[in-house]
């Protein structure tokens, strides 16, 4: 008699060892997987919703300062170290992982105006309202030792900005002029003046390390080359620039934070027009810092918010605010591009995620894949109205919301007026001025 039995070869479905991957039989026949667009659309919609639900950017607040935080400095070699200087002359060194202050020192009398860590990370410089530049060791003094700077330089005027060269023992300060200092000397090796101004900040280009940019109180941004005896060029804008920040991946782009609520990205070779005007803030922008990937930057504003802009987008992709955060004076993007740090008037330093909905920590490969997939789906369906609507939604405090609306109305009115003027005048007599051109007064060679 013949008995028919279903039989399967275990080789087909049993793993040799438990460390092998399970074999997953698949059939890619499209008729078995219908409605692909609708299904993916639903997935994208869900992913977008979840992203908004999980968007919790605020991580921690570091308190301990007894006055507003005036400047921040990140450590070039250690991610967990942060330095902050406050308006009472105190400098604190923080451990970010533990959220605690490691060291406190009274660096200056009056404000700490600027602070920068040397490129090697072994020491840092501070400047203050007491007209001094102080050079400090990074390690805390041993038990019983006095907290003393390695070196103190007494200047003639109050220094307002400070930055260190990327590779050599040279730093730059600004006061009524821009000075280049050698660390070993007590007088500047070079000083640049161009008219009588007072400068508010100076920054070295991180890529082309010999170039600097500074912004002056006469509404100008001045570029320098450390090797030359004269400044390079100057662009005068309609309002004062507070800070500039160079793109760390693209040598000739820098972004400046302006008093007229906007940020401007310039190509240093063509200062006639900014490459991009970044709008969205409703008050003066006080500080700006590029992400180390060079693709985004974060700006701090007097309107009590922090905004993150993609470098080539006119509007921000993210706005961060909390109820208790006052005017944000300084902001930094962490060196691993995952976090944003902000120091504000009400004595706190806040730690934010750079991507609000990002899951932190080590991810399993499957998690990673799922995230990448949903990211791509969101990108693919980003133009669909429902998804766009959800992805774009951000909560804003009432005050800022109203201010923004007000600004919009004003802008619209201005635009309408311009249109009317051009409509009722001889054709060609009223030139059309683009938004980019409006903000530059002149370029001085």
């Amino acid at each position, binding site marked *: 008699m013949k008995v028919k039995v279903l039989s399967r070869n275990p080789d087909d479905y049993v793993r040799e060892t438990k460390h092998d991957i399970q074999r997953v039989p698949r059939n890619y026949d499209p008729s078995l*997987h219908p409605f*692909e*667009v*609708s*299904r*993916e659309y639903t997935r994208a919609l869900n992913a977008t*919703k979840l992203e*908004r*639900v999980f*968007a919790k950017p605020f991580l921690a607040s570091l308190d301990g300062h007894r006055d507003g935080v005036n400047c921040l400095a990140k450590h*070039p070699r250690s991610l967990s170290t942060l330095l902050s200087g406050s308006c009472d002359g105190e400098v604190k060194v923080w451990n970010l992982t533990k959220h605690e202050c490691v060291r406190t020192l009274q660096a200056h009398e009056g404000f700490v105006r600027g602070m920068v860590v040397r490129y090697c990370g072994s020491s840092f410089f501070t400047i203050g309202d007491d007209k001094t530049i102080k050079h400090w060791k990074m390690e805390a003094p041993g038990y019983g030792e006095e907290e003393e700077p390695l070196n103190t330089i007494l200047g003639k005027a109050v220094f307002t900005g400070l930055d260190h060269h*990327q590779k050599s023992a040279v730093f730059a300060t600004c006061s009524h002029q821009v000075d280049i200092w050698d660390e070993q000397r007590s007088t500047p090796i070079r000083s640049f003046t161009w008219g009588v101004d007072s400068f508010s900040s100076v920054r070295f280009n*991180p*890529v082309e390390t010999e*170039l600097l940019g500074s912004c002056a109180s006469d509404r100008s941004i001045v*570029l320098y*080359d450390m090797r*030359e005896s*004269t400044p*390079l*060029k100057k662009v005068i804008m309609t309002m004062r620039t507070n800070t500039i920040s160079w793109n*760390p*991946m*693209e*040598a*000739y782009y820098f972004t400046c934070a302006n008093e007229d609520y906007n940020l401007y990205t310039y190509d240093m070779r063509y200062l006639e027009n900014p490459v991009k005007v970044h709008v969205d803030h409703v008050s003066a922008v006080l500080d700006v810092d590029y992400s*180390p*990937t*060079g693709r985004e930057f974060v700006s701090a504003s007097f309107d009590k918010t922090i905004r993150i802009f993609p470098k080539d*987008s006119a*509007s921000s992709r*993210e*706005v961060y605010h909390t109820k208790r955060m006052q005017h944000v004076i300084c902001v930094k993007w962490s060196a*691993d*591009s995952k976090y944003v740090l902000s120091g504000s008037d009400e004595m706190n330093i806040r730690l934010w995620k750079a991507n609000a909905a990002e899951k932190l*920590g080590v991810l399993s490969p499957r998690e990673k*894949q799922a995230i*990448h*997939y949903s*990211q*791509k789906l969101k990108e*693919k369906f980003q*133009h*669909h*109205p*429902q998804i*766009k*609507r*959800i992805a*774009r*939604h*951000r*909560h804003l*405090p009432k005050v*800022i*919301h109203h201010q923004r609306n007000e600004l*919009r*109305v004003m802008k*619209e009115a201005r635009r309408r007026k311009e249109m009317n003027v051009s409509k009722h005048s001889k054709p060609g007599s009223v030139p059309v001025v683009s938004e980019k051109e409006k903000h530059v007064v002149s370029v001085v*060679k």
Partner: protein
Amino acid sequence: MAKVSKKNSHKKKLMVSCGDPAISEGDQQLLYEDEEEEQGGMDRAEEETMSSEEDEGEDERKRQKLLEGIRSLGGKRKKALGERSEAAGQMSEFSVNPDGGPGKVQLSDLIGSLEKTPAVPAKSKKQLKNLQRSKKTIESPLSKQETERIQRHTAFQKAASEVSRWDGVITQNQRAEQLLFPLNRDPAGPRPVERLVVGWKARTPLEQEIFALLSANKQPLIDPILTPAEEASVKAMSLEEAKIRRAELQKARALQSYYEAKARRERKIKSKKYHKVQNKAKRKEFLKHFEEMVRMDPAVALQELNKMELARMQERMTLKHQNSSKWAKSKAIMAKYDEEARKAMQQQLEMNKELTQRLITPLNDDDDEEEEKEEAAADEADMLPDFVNNAVDGRDASNPWMKGKLSAEPAQQQLSDALTEAAQASVSEEEECQAGETEEEALLGEFNSRRKLHQAQESDAAGGVLPEEVTEDRAAAVESEASDSDDSCLLESPSISRGRENVLKETKATDHSERSALMEERLMRIRTVEDLELLPHEPSDEPSQPPTTKAPPSEEKHLSKRKKKGIELKEVLTKETKLIKVPFTPTVTDSEDPEAKIDQRGLIKEAFAGDDVISDFLKDKRRKEDEGKSKVIDLTLPGWGDWGGVGLKPPKRKRRRFRVKSAPPPPRKDQHLPSVIISEKRNTSVSLHQVHSLPFPFENHAQFESCIRSPLGRAWNTERTVKKVTKPRVVTQLGAIIDPMAEEELLKSNKKVVASS
């Protein structure tokens, strides 16, 4: 007394100097001398004469007279010399004024004396003369501001050009599909202990001796670390370069073996016909090639020609085609009966004729003998393309053999990429499963896959046209039917094509798409998924913007109202229609010749000659109207509160009572439009999810649709494709510090450019 006299003399001096302002300095000096003498005289005569003031007055007068007399002796007046009238710092005592004046010293004055002095060398005399002759003056230096401006300009130019070096890197990064940060990652894996342990020193004399010896010979001090020479060689070739090079070599080797295998296989084929055909083809190919060569490189062509001539001579000498061979004889016997044989003979004779004629024709042996074949095979092996042996230049675009994976096809346009991705995926999969097989097979597989890829691309290109047509058709249909609105698909966006018509609308749409990147900032907080549903559906910007395009429609309304009076639906349509000839708009573009078109038109005319389109349309419209009209619904239940059963009807009273008339629908929009049916059944729930304007990077809606249509998930794609498709644009490492871009990146990109060019 002396004092008095001194005083007097002073007075005198003053008088003199004041009284005669024109007096020269020389005279003054003279005067001083006189005075001194006088004084001396007076000192000496101090005791003897008690001079009085009157005496002095007399003396004065005399002296003046004397002086005048002396002056008059000279005849002409002396030159008035410059006088010091006020305090000047640089007043020279040699009467040379800073402001030139009459006493200006010329160069010639100074050089004049040089001519006579023999001590001065002739050369310098000559130079001085030349100097005197040239009248040019050196330009005065620029002002400080101007020099600074120039300096700034040059410095800026320098800096700008320096910065522009980064152009390549920056554009490369902008275009890159994926960016990995930090840029210079350390190679994975453990580092040697020797590198980590530093500060070890040789202490014992033996150790020191050994280390001295080692260092003297430039040998590595610690075992696994490379010698300087080795390190240099490692540095010279980076990992990627080495990988590329290795891959190239591998490929070349594979190709060579493939060629060899092919040659071997062909040599083994016994079919004479095959070889004949093969040879013929080769000859043809060669001829073609030769013509080209004549044009391009005459010298080489000449050599080839000579070679051919030699071959021909040999051929003639062998008498192969003289009908004297064994084969020919046998054929001659068979020729009587066999057509084939006769043909062969004929050919042979022709060949002979050709050979015996003194003509330069390229001629390869087309013999069938074994040795010849071997030769041919050997030739074939020789004729391997050069790159097989070189294997360095792997990026030859014209060379179909080198278009493999390794040469890293440049990034195509994203959309076309998306189209071909599926094909590529299948390719890559095949590759994967073939990894274990032999090189030859792998190569064959690769060729196969490439062919497939080509086919896929072609079909895609065809397919790219097809959906467009389809959508066009659809759009046309939609327009003609005035949007029957049953398009349930999410992506179909008929409004795109419609939106194009209205320029204003379009500009608004572009505005909208621009704003799509904007965040929608509101007062509402999102905490749960349910909150998301509550978000307002319309973008907030729209209500704020005043409706600018409202005016024209209202005007139209007025017009239509006015017109309405004149038009009576039934009248218009029941009247005899005027025939207006309107050219047919082609719904489908066909590439056929115009005659066919006309024919077709005629055909259509013929076909629809008997159709009464208007009455059909009217019927249609009436039906639609009737559907929308309110209906009477009968809600009577037979047997409810009454007897029920077969043949029993509910009473009239009840029927009347339970008959309900639904509310009349709102008036139809096409009520007064005779030739239009407006359907109001649009599915708003679907339109909420539809894209209403073409988003920015896409150029037409076919593109956009194809992009949306290609799924990304793993149910539709292979694992590898999914990985490739969902690759994130920027990758950062957790806890890794990203340093700013360094010079090395510039060098790297330069190297890449050099390698690719």
